[in-house]
């Protein structure tokens, strides 16, 4: 045992009291759960309500068979917690698990099987899937091995950034996919370390928050399917199938084979923070990788099935997640598990926020009924450690619960605004009857979030789940054949439009229209009130070849192709300038919904709607043109955005500006690059002050300012 640098402090509990299986032990402390290094040994603590006995199983690192099996003496049990300190362990070179004995009676919910070695739900590290894609040895009895982890990372002066929610520009990406492509040119492709090398790119893009698809340990090889065309193995690429909730995925770390994924991930977070970028984790508490009755027993099933899962009266698994099982989130013990987990990621990894996959499930009672006042959601909202983190709900589930706008927020929760996505997509493709709802969405969806403010709405047009932006304008239909499910997987309601040809085409007109449509989408997204979220790669027209459900595609369909940074530099530049524009104009980020009331300083309302004629919006069903003018608070700023999804050009009459201001052109997606967009502050004054011709399917953005003033 190493001596600390300062003088060794002698503690009474540093001495063993018992001997079990040849190891010196003493009763451990029930809290905290998990394996924790204590003076002279390691304290193990695990909960099981119905287990009749519990055995700690210890392996030398990587060995197939245990070196020791230590049954917890009955006097080491406090309530339903088994806790034991084992002395003399080399914490770095052991793996451990538990055997829990108890009743096997699925009808009453119990599935104890002492033959199984179970992972610790609180394991801070997991071994067994150390390097991505390496075929595991499935003959081993214990696949996902808990490991002990030192928690003494040197954070220096790093703290979470605390960027106001309304100022966020979120970038949703995948740790592996972002740098796995050979074109990434990073030292360790597909890892936390690789992503760290791309921080300058993210900074230059202007985003200030990165949202990572699941990074909790999962098993990419748990997908049994193969690509029907190539025969290649398909993976669980996205990772929404958690094996262990406290452990970062080893296969995402260049140092995972050394068990140093925790430090590598923390180093990434530390450097992202230093670059002014927050980190939000996509977390999956609605189900686990244990599946239904046929699924594997990994941890919860064998430790306390009836506590951790929602079960039918017959003992089967409720399936509100669409994946076989549903976590019993509002059971008091499970609530604490979720809370402990999130606290761990905030306190020990400096995570800034969370996006909750299928979060509607977090509001269901143990029998599946939606709760009016879900204790878990309230608990997370008020928790002292989580108090300033961002909490974002995917406010629906696979059981049909759709709570967009109604998610119990406790003044804290934001939502992925699925209605924003659907409305803007529909408008972009030119559907009739959308203009009225578009206005509501642009203004931060006051119909959904009147009491919560605009930052309750996370606005997005694309996400990992569905078409990429380039595919949204290139495909009418999904093309998911490579997933091996006969094109039956993935959503059918995409509101996409291929611009005249399905998939790749050499037609320059179609290509130009697609590029324009992508710019239109980005221009609308970044001038809408609410938190914008950009899908990684959309800024360079990343394509998934029409696949709208690439959960299993660990290949070029999913990976960020860095050669597109040069090839599609026009779109990248457009995105960068749009993000910079948003940062410059506070009225786009206002936390309160606009009211249409006059602003004292300029005599203009905070928001006004316009059509071909100034002050006369056309709300009719056939209208495909809408312009919005926003007037800032205090900085005399005016931003006018006209959106035309009609296939014909229109003459716009521009509203008159007070105080010697005139309209200056920031962006016109109908113009050829480089005139499509300008650097914010260097907008070009319009020659004809009162009019502007907006082209077919185009967005025009103007700022009202005095000619010699850079805003």
């Amino acid at each position, binding site marked *: 045992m*190493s*001596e600390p*640098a300062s003088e060794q402090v002698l503690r009474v509990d540093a001495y063993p009291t018992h001997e079990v299986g040849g190891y010196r032990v003493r009763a451990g402390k029930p809290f905290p759960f998990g394996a924790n290094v204590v003076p002279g040994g390691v304290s193990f603590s695990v909960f099981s309500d119905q287990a009749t006995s519990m055995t700690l199983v210890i392996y030398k690192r990587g060995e197939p068979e245990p070196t020791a099996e230590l049954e917890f003496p009955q006097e080491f049990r406090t309530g339903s917690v088994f806790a034991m300190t084992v002395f003399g362990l080399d914490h*770095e070179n052991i793996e451990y698990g538990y055997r829990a004995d108890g009743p096997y009676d699925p009808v009453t919910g119990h599935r104890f099987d002492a033959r199984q070695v179970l992972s610790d739900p609180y394991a801070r590290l997991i071994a067994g899937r150390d390097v991505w894609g390496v075929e595991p040895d499935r003959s081993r009895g214990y696949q996902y091995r808990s490991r002990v982890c030192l928690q003494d990372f040197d954070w220096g002066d790093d703290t979470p950034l605390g960027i106001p929610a309304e100022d966020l520009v979120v970038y949703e990406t995948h740790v592996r996919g972002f740098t796995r492509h050979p074109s990434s040119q990073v030292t360790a492709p597909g*890892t936390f370390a690789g992503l760290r090398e791309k921080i300058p790119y993210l900074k230059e893009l202007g985003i200030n928050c990165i949202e990572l698809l699941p990074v909790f340990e999962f098993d990419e090889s748990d997908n049994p399917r193969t690509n029907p065309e190539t025969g290649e193995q398909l993976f669980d690429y996205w990772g929404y199938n958690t094996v262990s909730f406290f452990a970062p995925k080893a296969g995402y770390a260049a140092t995972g084979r050394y*068990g140093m994924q925790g430090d590598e991930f923390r*180093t990434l977070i530390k450097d992202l923070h230093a670059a002014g970028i927050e980190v939000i984790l996509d977390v999956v508490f609605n189900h686990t990788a244990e599946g239904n009755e046929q699924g594997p027993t990994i941890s919860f099933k064998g430790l306390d099935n009836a506590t951790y899962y929602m079960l039918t009266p017959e003992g089967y698994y409720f399936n509100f997640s669409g994946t076989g099982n549903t976590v019993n989130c509002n059971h008091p013990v499970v609530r604490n598990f979720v809370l402990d987990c999130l606290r761990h990621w905030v306190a020990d990894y400096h995570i800034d926020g969370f996006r909750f996959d299928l979060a509607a499930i977090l509001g269901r009672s143990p029998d599946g009924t939606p709760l009016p006042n879900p204790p878990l959601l309230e608990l997370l909202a008020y928790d002292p450690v989580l108090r300033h983190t961002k909490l974002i709900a995917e406010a629906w589930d696979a059981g049909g619960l759709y709570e967009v706008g109604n998610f119990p927020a406790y003044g804290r929760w934001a939502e992925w605004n699925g209605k924003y996505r659907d409305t803007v997509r529909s408008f972009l493709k030119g559907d009739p009857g959308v203009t009225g709802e578009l206005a509501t969405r642009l203004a931060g969806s006051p119909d959904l979030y009147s009491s919560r403010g605009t930052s309750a709405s996370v606005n997005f047009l694309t996400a990992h789940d569905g078409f990429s932006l380039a595919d949204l304008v290139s495909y009418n239909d999904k093309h998911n054949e490579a997933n091996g499910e006969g094109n039956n997987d993935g959503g059918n309601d995409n509101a996409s439009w291929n611009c005249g040809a399905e998939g790749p085409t050499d037609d320059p007109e179609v290509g130009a229209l697609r590029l324009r449509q992508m710019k239109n989408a980005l221009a609308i997204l970044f001038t809408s009130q609410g938190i914008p979220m950009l899908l990684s790669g959309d800024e360079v027209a990343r394509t998934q070849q029409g696949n709208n459900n690439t959960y299993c595609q660990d290949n070029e369909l999913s990976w960020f192709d860095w050669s597109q940074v040069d090839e599609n530099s026009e779109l990248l530049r457009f995105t960068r300038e749009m993000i910079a524009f948003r940062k410059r104009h506070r009225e786009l980020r206002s936390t309160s919904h606009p009211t249409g009331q006059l602003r004292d300083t300029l005599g203009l309302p905070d928001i006004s709607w316009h059509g071909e004629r100034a002050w006369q919006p056309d709300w009719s069903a056939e209208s495909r043109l809408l312009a919005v003018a926003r007037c800032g608070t205090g900085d005399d700023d005016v931003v006018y955005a006209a959106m035309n999804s009609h296939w014909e050009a229109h003459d716009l009459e521009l509203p008159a500006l007070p105080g010697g201001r005139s309209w200056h052109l920031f962006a016109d997606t109908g113009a050829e690059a480089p005139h499509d967009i300008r650097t914010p502050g260097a907008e070009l004054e319009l020659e004809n002050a009162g009019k502007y011709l907006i082209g077919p399917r185009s967005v025009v953005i103007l700022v009202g300012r005095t000619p010699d003033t850079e805003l």
Partner: protein
Amino acid sequence: MTLNVKERRNKTGIVLVATGEINSETSGSLLQTLLPLVREGRPLRIDLTAVTYVSSAGLRTLLVVYREAQHAGVAVTLYGVSEEVRFVMSATGFLDFFSTGEAEAAAAKTAAKTPAKTAAKAAR
């Protein structure tokens, strides 16, 4: 796997040459060796040329030494870090904390190109 350490002293400071692996088993005794050397207050170089692996606990031990040295105002330099160890230290962020021989060598090279007078001034 064991770790052997040998100590050398010269005019400029102390050099500790390590051979083997620095892990949870060996780092305790390494720390016992290093801390008194740090407390002597002379520049310390740790030669890792013959170190094949530094584990998570090993990296922490080196960082503890570095922090103790920082506290005492003593310069600690890692030297001869192998490519693999350097890769691990870089990916996990530990490399950022340390001065390494390569950086020192590069600095010396720059200093050599600088007129002696200016270099001396900079050193002050």
